[in-house]
């Protein structure tokens, strides 16, 4: 069964490896460039010296320089989980049903539920390894930028659990769509469209909706006049915090912001959403296939 699963997904595994290599080459090149700039511009030294308080202009210059180059990577990674997940998921049952090979596969001495669970377990394992590997190189590449930018938003930059869970969600929807439509291409299209829903919600939750903001009052030490929401470093004093609004009252500031420490909370919310959809889709697929002796 393990060999059969490997043989049926060999081509997909090779494509994933090639994708990983392409992303890794781009990420390593970008990461190396960032790191050399980080030290040659004196940013690293400035951060070490002052914790960011005196580095406004050099941080500004650094983020200006690299926010552009990371965009292509982000764009590729944005669509990747949906396309790849649907492309791997939809044929798993869709192609068997479309080509009639299910009659061959499920009349051997392996009951079809075990057949499906084995296939799913192995392919999900492969996708997790792929997702984790891509996340690792992207996270490494973005390291210097993350030190000086708003960390809570980074789910959108495909760090942490986001990419892997998003990929699994698209895969699971692909498996279910392939089973329901008995067709590979149709399954891929439907799965990609369906994946947009949890993907959009996750993007909104970790980005524009700012669901985990904190409001606190800060006493101004060296004058409130120059403080603004876009101050670098932020008025909260932590480089990773994202200040959303700021009101002056005498010599105090009322600040609403998303703390950098909420990164993992947001990650878990997104991951939970993706994995819940994935589990529901795979559970339904297993149940339908088990029942489908009618």
């Amino acid at each position, binding site marked *: *069964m*393990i*060999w*059969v699963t490997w*043989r*049926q997904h060999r*081509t997909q595994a090779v494509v994933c490896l090639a994708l990983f290599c392409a992303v890794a080459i781009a990420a390593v090149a970008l990461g190396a460039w960032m790191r050399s700039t980080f030290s040659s511009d004196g940013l690293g030294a400035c951060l070490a010296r002052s914790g960011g308080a005196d580095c406004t202009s050099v941080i500004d210059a650094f983020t200006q320089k690299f926010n552009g180059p990371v965009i292509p990577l982000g764009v590729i990674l944005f669509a990747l989980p949906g396309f790849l997940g649907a492309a791997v998921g939809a044929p798993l049952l869709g192609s068997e049903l479309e*080509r*009639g*090979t*299910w*009659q*061959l*596969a*499920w*009349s*051997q*001495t*392996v*009951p*079809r*539920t075990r057949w499906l669970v084995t296939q799913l377990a192995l392919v999900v394992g492969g996708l997790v390894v792929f997702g984790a590997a891509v996340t690792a190189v992207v996270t490494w590449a973005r390291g210097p930028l993350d030190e000086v930018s708003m960390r809570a938003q980074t789910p959108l930059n495909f760090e942490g659990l986001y990419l892997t869970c998003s990929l699994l969600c698209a895969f699971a929807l692909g498996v279910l769509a392939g089973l329901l439509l008995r067709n590979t291409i149709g399954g891929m299209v439907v799965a990609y469209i369906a994946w947009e829903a949890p993907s959009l919600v996750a993007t909104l939750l970790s980005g524009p909706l700012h669901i985990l903001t904190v409001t606190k009052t800060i006493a101004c030490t060296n004058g409130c006049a120059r403080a603004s929401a876009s101050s670098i470093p932020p008025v909260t004093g932590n480089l990773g915090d994202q200040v959303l609004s700021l009101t002056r009252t005498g010599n105090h500031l009322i600040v609403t912001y998303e703390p950098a420490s909420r990164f993992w909370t947001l990650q878990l919310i997104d991951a939970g959403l993706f994995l819940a959809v994935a589990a529901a889709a795979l559970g339904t697929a297993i149940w339908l296939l*088990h029942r489908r*002796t*009618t």
Partner: protein
Amino acid sequence: MTLEASVPALRADRLGKQYGHVWGLRDCSFEVPAGSVVGLVGPNGAGKTTLLALTVGLLAPTEGQVAVFGEPSRAQTEGTLARVSYLAQDHPLYRNFTVGDMLRFGRSMNPRWDHALALGRMEALGIPLARKIKALSGGQQAQVALTLALAKRTPLLALDEPVASLDPVARLEFMQDVMAEVADKGLTVIIASHVIAELERLCDWLLVLTGGRLQLSGPLDGLLAGHAVLTVPRQTQDADLPGAVLSRTDSDRHSTVLVAADQAHVAAAWQPGWLSEPAGFEQLVLAYLRRPPVAAPAGRSMVGEGTAR
């Protein structure tokens, strides 16, 4: 061995399968002894594939059951899957696999897989293991699919329209191969087909299905002996003829009738001026195929096992 021989290879007991509101197969009961070569005949949509799928455990019955060597078939259980080999219609295979991959697929999916048998057959047939399935001819693909079924090493082989897509030469070779293996290993085989002529040479047991109903079941020689073709004067009433009248063709002065009656019945009803001939295979099958499905239960009980032994 004696015990095994007494257990029927196949036994259906009021077997039925409903698809939505439509019955694909209903009230189907029969027995087939071990070692038989069973011809399963019927028009498209008669329920042949349904019967095979129920037997091999791809489908679960709505009512009744079918047992293989005494063990009821249960959908997608390892026990049932291990007892029957199935060659589906159009012999599906993974087109991107090589022949070697296909055999390895069989080996990794079946605990009793006979790899030597599989390799030997490929060599004997001159099918290279490195060739892709999609590069093989239709006949070669059918042979690879048959090899998968044979190397699974089961006592029952179920073939669904195995030669429908093959040219006449490939058909002949394929069926010769099946029969050689069946004879060699003492297998029971059930072959669904609508090519009646093909079956006449091969089968020793016949099942006829129409409209999801079993019309006829029995050993071929018994069925032939249990039917007669009579040529009688045209004015002879059906009621005066022995047994049930299955078909009747009237000409100017005479009628040719196929009756479900053995020699003794024919002799008992005999009237001067009648002519009697043995029934032919094709004539018999066609007569049952043409009968309306609703008449099935009566036809079955009348003909079935009574004349069989």
